[in-house]
Every structure is written in C-alpha cells, then in structure tokens.
C-alpha cells in the first residue's frame, strides 16, 4: 500500500480511455466519491466492468449520464434507462455477461487462470462465438479472463496498511475486483488503526491495495 490520497487526486491518476472495474450492486458498495471525482474531472472514453450500471444519479449511473463511458461489460442494465438509450443510439457498447460468469471471469483474471469452464449460457445466445469444451462427458463454455487498468473498490473499513473489510451485501464484486486491477484504489467508509480489523475479518489483504481514498 502506497498511501492515502483524495478522490480528486485518484481521479487525476486515471487517464481517459482507461478500463475500470468498479464494485457495487445497484450502487450498494460502490465507491461514490471516486465516481463523483471522475465525473468532476470530465473523464472520457472509459470502459467499465461491473455487475450493473445502477440507476441515473447513483453509482456507475453517474458516469453513464456524464457520457464518460464508451463500453460496459455487465450482467444487468435494466434499471438504468440511460444505459439502454445510449446503447440503442450507438453511443455505448454493452457486453452482457451472466452474473456468475462475469464474476468468475474477473476472478480468473485476478487469480492467474486462463479462463473458466461453465455450463451457464450453453444453448443460449451467450454461447455464440465461444468454444465448447467437454470434460468427463459434460459440455462447458470456455469463458476468458478479465483484467482492467484500475479496480475501484468500495469498502467499509480500511486500516493503515490497506487491509479491507466489507459490510453485508456491500461485498458483492469488491473483494474479487481487488485482485484483477493493475492498480487498485480502495475507498473505505473509514480508515482505522492497524489491529482494529482482526486478521480473520480481513477480506482483502492490504498487499493488493495500492491507494486508499481519504475523506474530503
């Protein structure tokens, strides 16, 4: 862990055209201050890999509304009419991936695996263009790993060395994307002294985290 910085400084580190994994499920557990800072700096051309695009005015929805995004890889965009409108208008490329496959592709990217084999999507539109591999007589789709330039992680607590803990349903994609971003920026709700988060409660070890976002 390199240290703590403001959300604005973190947003300045993220260039236009970067690929970002962003935690959150319908904005629950999303790093809202980082997202606000990206909107404020006028970020453009971003590729977002996330479960969903939330709704207008919340989480990733704010980046969609700001026109900061050119491509989304997500499992669901149904609650954000702006994502759908921009997709239909051809301003935004959307790749829809089954949720369990999406998180495993990210996990594979983060854990150094060459992909995952899953039965999800067999015999559906999801199979188009993909290899089917048989293992012990059972067919599976080969799904390839995903990585990104940055992972923007929303956490509940961080300590001074960057260990992270999450709360309830705000875990979602966060602990997994923390492995798959080249640079990992975590936005905790609070930063606490080392030892406050017990070793057994650490879900993301601080060695994975490059920067923490401070308040203000």
């Amino acid at each position, binding site marked *: 862990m390199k240290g703590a910085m403001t959300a604005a400084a973190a947003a300045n580190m993220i260039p236009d055209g970067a690929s970002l994994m962003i935690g959150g*499920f*319908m*904005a*629950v*557990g999303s790093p809202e201050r980082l997202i606000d800072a990206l909107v404020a700096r006028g970020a453009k051309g971003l590729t977002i890999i996330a*479960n*969903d695009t939330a709704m207008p005015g919340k989480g990733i929805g704010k980046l969609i509304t700001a026109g900061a995004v050119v491509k989304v890889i*997500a*499992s*669901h*965009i*149904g*609650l954000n009419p702006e994502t*759908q409108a921009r*997709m239909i208008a051809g301003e935004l490329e959307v790749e*829809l991936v*089954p*949720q*369990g*496959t999406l*998180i*495993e592709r990210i*996990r594979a990217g983060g854990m150094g695996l060459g992909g995952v084999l*899953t*039965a*999800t*999507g*067999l*015999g*559906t*539109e*999801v199979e188009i263009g993909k290899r089917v591999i048989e293992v012990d007589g059972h067919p599976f789709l080969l799904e390839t790993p995903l990585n990104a330039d940055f992972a923007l992680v929303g956490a*509940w607590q961080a300590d001074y060395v960057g260990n992270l803990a*999450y*709360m*309830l*349903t*705000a*875990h*979602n*994609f*966060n*602990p*997994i994307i923390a492995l798959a971003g080249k640079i990992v920026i975590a936005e905790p709700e609070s930063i606490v002294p080392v030892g406050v988060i017990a070793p057994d409660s650490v*879900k993301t070890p601080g060695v994975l985290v490059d920067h923490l976002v401070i308040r203000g």
Partner: protein
Amino acid sequence: MEAKELIARRVAREIRSGMLVNLGIGLPSLVANYVPASLGVFFQAENGVIGLGARPPEGMQDPHLTDAGGGFVSAVPGAASIDSAMSFGLIRGGHLDMTVLGGLQVDEAGQLANWKVPGKMVPGMGGAMDLVTGAARVIVAMQHAAKGESKILPKCTLPLTSQRRVSLIVTDMAVIEPTADGLVLRERAPGVSVEQIIAATGAQLIVRGDVPEMTL
C-alpha cells in the same frame, strides 16, 4: 384470491424444511410471505446474503443490506454475508435447493425464456442464466397468459435463458410439470376445468386421469 397470491401460495408449498431458496424479483418474491418461519428455510439474495429477512421498520433501513432488486431488507438469525463469487458458487455448484423465477415463455421441452425481448427490452440476464442452469429445482412462477396470449408454447420464440428443463411451472390456472415426454398437467387452480386450461395453453398438455385441484 388474486392471481399473484394464488401462484405465490402454491409455490410456497414446494418449499421444504431447511432448504436454501432463491426468489426472483417481482411475483416470486411474494412466495416468502407464505413460508412458515418454523420451516427454517434460508432465502438467498444473489447480491450476497443467505438468510434474507423481512423489510425493516421505517427509518431502520441500512444502505449495506439490500436484496437483488435493490430493495431494503433485514437478515434473520444465522444469516451470512458473502461476495458474488461465493454467491454464484452456491448457485452454480448445486448448493441451491430451489430457485423461483418469473417467465416470459416456457415451451414443451420445459425450456424457459425470461431475459430478453429483442428490440424491446434488453435488461441483461443478471443472475437468471446461472440460477436456471445451476439450482437443484427450478420453479417458474408466472401468469398463464399475457395480453390474452398463452405464455406456454410449443417452442419458445424469445431467446432462451438456459437449455435446462425447468422442474415445475405454477400459474394462476395450473401446475404443470415438464418431463421427457412433454408437459404434464398436474393440478388445476380452484374452479378451473381441465378444458379451460387446455384452451388457454398454446402447447400440448399431457393429461393423465383425474387432475386434482391445487391445495393452497
């Protein structure tokens, strides 16, 4: 009784003691209202909680605890919070005893379409493809017809959610079990005749002997 309540009550009777159950948003979520707490059932929300509880009292909502539709929930004693990889590991790995989902169409092969209406509605599949592919039992809870058109057809015309044959279809008119031979009519809704069900169903139904009325 309202159609939705009838469907939810009948689906609830499929749930057995100690099961892990995932309820989809909308109609399927009503099923929880008719499952006695004494059964010790755990409801999973795929965004990351096992042991979903009722809506919290007004003003007691926690932004870190929502269901897969983004609505505020509580958690029951014994609940566990999990990340998305664990959540979909439970679903895909055969650890989920039952999923209840809505449907747009089901066909004679028992295949379900419920995630996309090309050109009209492309919300994304979210977790539906993993749920239908991976859960031990898949129950489709839906109205028998939409806008006067049967939702049970010889062959789905909408994109499939999975090639897997679902376990049971529960509608406001009937309980139908997809089998290797085709769709077997198991039960009638109160006051509905076999002839009325056949007339309202676009697919061929197999009727064997007397078809009992649903117990609710």
